[in-house]
């Protein structure tokens, strides 16, 4: 069964350092999403791609976060500089398309900022 791949699975960094997360969606899925999940809460959308274009990045802290999906396949989410409050699980999901666009999530990257 096809799955969304993410790496690394865990990342520990110090405040003010740069971090990057990678996501490989299910083959053929045009939509890709990055969510942030703080412990004990539901995921919150950071950015949404349709192919290589950003559809919604209204919740992305653009002063420190950036996301790209250059060839419309895999995607990278970057944080620079990292802050203590960025500690969370970063989830990538890809969607089947169509009206109801069923989303499949990857295992996530657990970020700890010290």
């Amino acid at each position, binding site marked *: 069964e096809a799955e*969304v791949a993410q790496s690394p699975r865990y990342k520990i960094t110090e405040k003010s350092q740069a971090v990057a997360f990678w996501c490989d969606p299910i083959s053929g899925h045009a*939509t890709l*999403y990055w969510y942030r999940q703080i412990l*004990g*809460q*539901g*995921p*919150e*959308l950071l950015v*949404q791609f*349709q192919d290589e274009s950003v*559809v*919604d990045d209204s919740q992305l802290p653009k002063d420190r976060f950036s996301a790209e999906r250059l060839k419309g396949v895999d995607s990278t989410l970057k944080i620079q500089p990292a802050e203590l409050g960025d500690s969370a699980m970063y*989830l990538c*999901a890809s*969607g089947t398309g169509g*009206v*109801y*666009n*069923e*989303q*499949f*999530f*990857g*295992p*996530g990257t*657990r970020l700890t900022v010290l």
Partner: protein
Amino acid sequence: QQQVKQSPQSLIVQKGGIPIINCAYENTAFDYFPWYQQFPGKGPALLIAIRPDVSEKKEGRFTISFNKSAKQFSLHIMDSQPGDSATYFCAAMRAGGTSYGKLTFGQGTILTVHP
């Protein structure tokens, strides 16, 4: 108006019990309501979903009940098993539109099923 409120925050049942998790939404533009199951250290996995043109949907031991007029929906787990112990999230989405496929999640319910 984008919020989805979920309750209870945690739930403990005995094996064979029927836990019920409730969600309420405000945005009447939402027209797709999925439930996700998440195990520790894993990403959420789609469990079951409903559209507002039906009042109930069953898949195996999982049932969604939907009340459009009250803007509420709930998940029932029949004959619950210890393996169902996980965090459950309801979500809502507006199909199509400029925020195509954007899911708004509830706060989650930690379910524990004792043997």
